[in-house]
């Protein structure tokens, strides 16, 4: 793991001293703030609530794909520069001729975008605090919701890291990643399209929307986490192989 921390720190620094992370953060928080506002206004007019539907659940993706859509745009934008920019500018040559392993480079870069993603969600804890002032909040549900968000985000970010390694153009990396995560979403929609049978089972299993649905109810289904973990591992493994393959270009 030699070089991992150096790569991680450099990546964090570069993400936060350039406008990209800040622009994404502002857009993201404006969007989430608007969603939160409309959810609160909506629930304020309802006479009574059942146990597992409420503003918190709604915010974390229940009965709505708004959140998933946001992630499908946020995550690709976060990862697009990861490798594409280094290859376009040539800094990849300096990076890969330092005494570091490709695995350390890939993990350092990946964990930096995951950290940045988590930091972007951090201000939304305020929303939960606001709700707690006016009523009761089911804390375990909030925790599982954030875990679900991390799982979905980690998967999207891993796909984005892989796509960024496939091209020298940030724009192409962005579009490829959107294509992949949207493809994954469309597969999940199959749950509501296919008749009962193996196809429907697979679609339900792959559905990131259902994952948020579950986690926002407080249901931690280990199969979902295994899926996220497997997708992340697969994407990162492929990224390491791609980085390795540049030596043979």
């Amino acid at each position, binding site marked *: 793991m*030699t*070089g991992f*921390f*150096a*790569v991680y*720190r*450099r990546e964090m*620094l*570069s993400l936060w*001293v*350039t406008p990209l992370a800040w622009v994404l953060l502002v857009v993201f928080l404006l969007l989430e703030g608007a969603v939160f506002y409309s959810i609160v206004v909506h629930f304020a007019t309802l006479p009574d609530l059942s146990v597992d539907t409420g503003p918190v659940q709604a915010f974390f993706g229940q009965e709505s794909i708004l959140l998933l859509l946001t992630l499908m745009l946020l995550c690709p934008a976060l990862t697009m520069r990861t490798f594409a920019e280094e290859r376009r*500018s*040539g*800094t*990849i*040559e*300096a*990076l*890969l*001729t*330092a*005494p*570091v*392993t490709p695995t350390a480079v890939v993990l350092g870069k990946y964990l930096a975008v995951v950290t940045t993603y988590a930091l972007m969600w951090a201000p939304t804890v305020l929303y939960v605090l606001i709700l707690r002032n006016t009523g009761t909040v089911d804390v375990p549900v909030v925790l599982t919701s954030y875990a679900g968000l991390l799982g979905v985000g980690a998967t999207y970010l891993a796909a984005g890291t892989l796509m960024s390694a496939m091209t020298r153009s940030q724009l192409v990396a962005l579009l490829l990643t959107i294509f992949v995560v949207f493809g994954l979403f469309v597969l999940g929609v199959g749950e509501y399209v296919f008749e009962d049978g193996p196809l429907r089972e697979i679609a339900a299993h792959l559905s990131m929307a259902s994952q948020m649905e579950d986690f926002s109810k407080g249901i931690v289904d280990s199969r979902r986490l295994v899926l996220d973990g497997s997708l992340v591992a697969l994407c990162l493994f492929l990224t390491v192989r791609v980085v390795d393959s540049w*030596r*043979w*270009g």
Partner: protein
Amino acid sequence: MIEVSNLVKDYGTVVAVRDVSFRVGKGEVVGFLGPNGAGKSTTLRMLAGFLGPTSGSIRIHGYDVQREPIAARRHLGYMPEAAPLYPELRVREYLHFRAALKHVPRRERARAVEAAMERASVTELADTLILHLSKGYRQRVALADALVASPPLLILDEPTAGLDPNQNREVRRLIRELGKTHTILLSTHILSEVEATCDRALVIDRGRLVAEGTLDALLALGRRRGLEGELRDPERRAADVARSVHGVRALSFRDGADAPDHVHVTVELDTDTDEKAIAERLVAAWVGAGVGVRALGPGKSSLEDVFAALTEHPEAGAPA
């Protein structure tokens, strides 16, 4: 320090490096010389571990670049051709990152960075964004990066490319100074650079090593057969006299500053003749005819001539 044997890089569409072998010993400053596109950068990139060789082996400081890449890279400081840097970082931030990446222990990092900036004369720019640096300063920051972990070996790909004459002189001075403490392999297509900085040169052309040796040995390689000298020839008889000397093929004269008292002469000789014997006969004939012979010696050559002789292609147009 560097042992390269039978190195080949085949890109599929083009063979960039064909069977190159050489060694660079400890403490040497070696120039890697060749026209653009000869395979210099490809070879250096393989040495630095950025590209994998199709076949052949490279050892850096005794470590095989393929099998022990981390150990090999720890012993070398590599400066890529374009000096790529992160524009969004400050010089000191960048060098700190590079020092960490190169296993400089945390406690020594700040000192290593300051020392490297000092050597590359970029200390006064420590807090400047790399974005705002000129090409020459970027080059120096890249050099500071190569130095930051104090590796015994430096591999510099075209360290003076794109610099103005003053910066050029500055970088050459720096390389000469570094040569006292480091082993250096630097590539260039500028001959004066090799003359100014290197003990020895490797000449590569179209992927092949075509010559190798000290500068004097290379100069001798490219020397044209012939004589050069200076004459005092007020009556303009030197040409007629010389033509009667056996073995002389052609002469050319160039008037010096105080012509015709001072004439520069170049003598071409027939092949398979004894240069020294002809020189003797020529001097005797000229002196006998009243021509003042001020100097006569073997024809000189410049590194440019050597380079041209080694890398020019009579069969130009043939597939490379």
